[in-house]
């Protein structure tokens, strides 16, 4: 079946005029009209293609192609058309000289292939073809509407940079470059998407990142054969190691500072045009529990907050299931007075605890999903109804018990302490099988579930790095950034698995103090 689908795609490929040009590996024709007709044929029925004939210095025939809306027309008129069209007598012997003398645009590229010309037009560069020359030139005058740089709403910080990536690749690239001024920051561009032709950048630090890792990443990116890339999420699913795992094996972030810190630890970053989310790999499960702010706040506080997150990760995964297991199988485990309190609140509840828990958890998930999707205008109405229905009314009506509401609320809060949304979603999803196991096998079921999850986590790797490292396999000194957040003057080495080729991050012995004042 799969094979047949492949065939279907490839047969479509041949009928596409754009790809037919690509297949024609020949250079631009000598014949000016032929070239023009070719491009116009490729862009037939494309109402946004603008072409304009003009004479250079009133003598030589030329044609300009561009796609409306993608080009800085003001600049095109001022720096290209008007200098070229005004009468001038100076002789020139080739396109190159013409460019050097007449066109005051910095980004100019000479093209010799028709396919290249088409590509350039599509990506927003005006193309000029000249009569009598078998080459055209592309002017880098791309300009289109883009979103302003804002603070990413999903990764807000109290302290730290407030800029976030936007949808425009060039802007994102600039943000990285502004943070790392070294030429060692390499950015390989790969084009993905048969129709979308989305530029994707693989960024890494030369001399820190493992060469084999970069080669592997590049290979995986190049292997992708897809019609369009709309977001980095699509790339993520096509290059990860364990596609069936609920856990994401690439980190996505909107924050340039996060991307930069990972670059400096020897990881690579994938920027995708059109998506404010960049991908980072290889990562471990702990990457999903670290917020960028951890590194900007005082280390003692950051350590405590990290532990808070670890605790709430467990709560988010296990609290409802432990509650269900305890009150249906292990009533002797709870202190007597608490137990009697819980029994009292369950007195009038018609459902078994398992059903009650599932009911509430599903309702909470629905509420969360609805809150995400609903139009802002009705937001407050829905949230009031949701809060009342879930909280007050359901308890008053005796459909759910008050402790269950507390459990669900706490679990909901807990799942949002995980800084990375994609990691939190995995935990949220795994909660449901855990509740089912707890409701059928009790604490034994919870243990079975936990063991399964741990085995799975120990199995998977992200681009060759064990997902649980550096805790499993245990690497003693590496835990300085896992169990605690060591102060910066202690974080002298890069993480071993990604940064071993350039081990030292900074000079040792930088612990400040009055004695180190001005020596």
């Amino acid at each position: 079946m799969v094979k047949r689908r492949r065939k279907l795609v490839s047969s479509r490929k041949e009928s596409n005029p754009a790809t037919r040009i690509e297949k024609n590996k020949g250079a631009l024709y000598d014949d000016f009209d032929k070239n023009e007709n070719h491009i116009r044929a490729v862009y037939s029925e494309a109402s946004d293609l603008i072409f304009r004939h003009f004479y250079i210095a009133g003598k030589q025939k030329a044609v300009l192609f561009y796609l409306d809306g993608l080009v800085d027309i003001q600049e095109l008129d001022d720096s290209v058309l008007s200098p070229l069209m005004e009468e001038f007598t100076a002789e020139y012997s080739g396109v190159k000289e013409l460019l050097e003398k007449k066109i005051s645009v910095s980004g100019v590229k000479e093209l010799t292939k028709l396919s290249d010309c088409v590509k350039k037009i599509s990506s927003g560069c005006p193309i000029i073809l000249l009569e009598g020359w078998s080459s055209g030139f592309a002017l880098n005058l791309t300009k289109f509407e883009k979103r302003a740089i804002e603070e990413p709403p999903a990764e807000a910080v109290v302290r730290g940079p407030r800029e976030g990536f936007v949808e425009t690749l060039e802007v994102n690239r600039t943000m990285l470059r502004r943070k790392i001024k070294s030429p060692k920051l390499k950015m390989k561009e790969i084009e993905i998407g048969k129709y979308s032709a989305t530029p994707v950048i693989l960024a890494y630090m030369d001399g820190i990142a493992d060469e084999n890792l970069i080669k592997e990443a590049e290979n995986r990116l190049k292997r992708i054969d897809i019609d369009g890339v709309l977001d980095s999420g699509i790339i993520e699913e096509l290059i990860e190691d364990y596609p069936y795992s609920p856990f994401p094996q690439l980190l996505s972030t909107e924050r340039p500072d996060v991307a930069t810190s990972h670059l400096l630890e020897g990881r690579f970053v994938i920027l995708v045009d059109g998506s404010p989310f960049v991908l980072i790999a290889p990562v471990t499960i702990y990457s999903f529990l670290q917020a960028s702010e951890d590194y900007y706040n005082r280390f003692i506080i950051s350590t405590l907050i990290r532990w808070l997150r670890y605790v709430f990760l467990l709560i988010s995964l296990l609290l409802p299931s432990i509650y269900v297991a305890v009150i249906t199988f292990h009533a002797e485990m709870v202190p007597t007075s608490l137990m009697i309190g819980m029994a009292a609140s369950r007195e009038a509840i018609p459902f078994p605890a398992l059903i009650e828990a599932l009911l509430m958890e599903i309702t909470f998930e629905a509420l969360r999903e609805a809150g995400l999707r609903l139009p802002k205008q009705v937001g407050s109405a829905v949230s009031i109804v949701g809060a009342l229905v879930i909280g007050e009314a359901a308890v008053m009506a005796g459909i759910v018990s008050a402790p269950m509401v507390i459990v669900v609320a706490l679990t909901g809060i807990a799942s949002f302490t995980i800084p990375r949304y994609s990691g939190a979603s995995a935990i949220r999803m795994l909660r449901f099988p855990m509740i089912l196991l707890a409701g059928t096998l009790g604490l034994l079921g919870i243990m079975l579930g936990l063991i399964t999850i741990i085995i799975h986590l120990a199995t998977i790797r992200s681009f060759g790095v064990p997902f649980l490292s550096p805790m499993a396999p245990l690497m003693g000194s590496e835990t300085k950034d896992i169990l605690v957040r060591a102060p910066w003057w202690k974080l002298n080495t890069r993480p071993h698995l990604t940064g071993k080729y350039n081990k030292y991050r900074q000079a040792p012995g930088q612990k400040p103090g009055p004695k180190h004042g001005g020596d």
Partner: protein
Amino acid sequence: MAQGYLHLSKKLLLIVFTWGSLLVLSGCWDRVEINDLAIVLAAGIDKTEDDQIELTVQLAIPNQMGGGQQQGSGSGGQGEKPTLTKQATGTTISEAASILQQKVPRRIFWGHNTVIVFGKELAEGGIREYVEFFAHHPEPRLRSFVFVSEERASALLEVIPYLEQSSSQFARELARFQIGLRVTLKDLLESISGGARAVALPGLEYEYENVKEKKGGLNINGTAVFKEDKMEGYLDDRLTRGLLWIRNEVHLATVSFTPENADGYMSFKLLRSNTQLHPEIKDGKWKMTLAITTEDDIEENQTDLVLTDPKIIAELEEQLAAKIDERIEETLSTVQKEMKADVLGFAKSFEQKYPDEWEQVKDRWEEKFAEVEIEVVSKAYIRRLGMSTQPQGIPEEEMKEE
């Protein structure tokens, strides 16, 4: 490729099927919702006239115990009893329990039983057979407290106490204070089977404040002394205090006496106390030295003694130690000479130090215990004088300094 795809879906199906059947087949067989449990808070065991046993259980009524705000049913928690007592008779406890189950619409659940009370009548005939149930059944806790009631245990469980929600909780909190003895089921089982062949259990009694509503309180009172597993005698409160000192279990104690050369009482509050047993066998003579060290605060001073004087304090310390000695001697004479029941832990202490000699007297320990020579060496320290070092309300010139 196509084959692999199929294979994967097959694998997935297999996983779903096995897990699904695991969940369904295991079928939550011991799943019981907590609102389907009859939670036993306390159990009382009495003897009936025809030599059967009567089991009384105190069951919690969760709604009445103030759990949650589920007053929706309209009856209102006010005035309703928070607990319910139910009785059944049978030849064994488990038989009585199964008869009891016929009268209770929820599954009787022993997991939260914290108090076991034996009626005196039953205790005199031996308790070993009845303790066994609580150790044998998987649900009851070995940490439940065991008491002996002079009256019928059932009457005690019917008390609706003030301050606490149930008489079970009342008894438990009292036991935790360790004003009287604190014996858990585990301690009891250990000492029944231990070398001493004697057991001490705290006594529990009740008094009604409102007989009609059965409102009242409980009171830990004295100690029931068992030989083997049969109740032998009763130590009153005063003797119980001495017993606590010897067993190194005293935590809350106030000693009051009139110091020499002074009028009025002085009260000393125990800070901490340590009792060590030093067994010794010399020329066939068995001797036990009790080394007691107590540290006390002065809590009340009715006399005209000025406490800042170290000489006075030294004298008081001596007198305090003597006072404690006196109490202990009293208990010793009753327990050792009259009852001949080793509830003091001597047997264990001798066994540990002189295992060979112990082996010889093991079978006639009761006689041997009565012959053991006992020496009490106590030392008291006064640590803090309280907020006023001088007696209050006395003109300065009348204060006594040495």
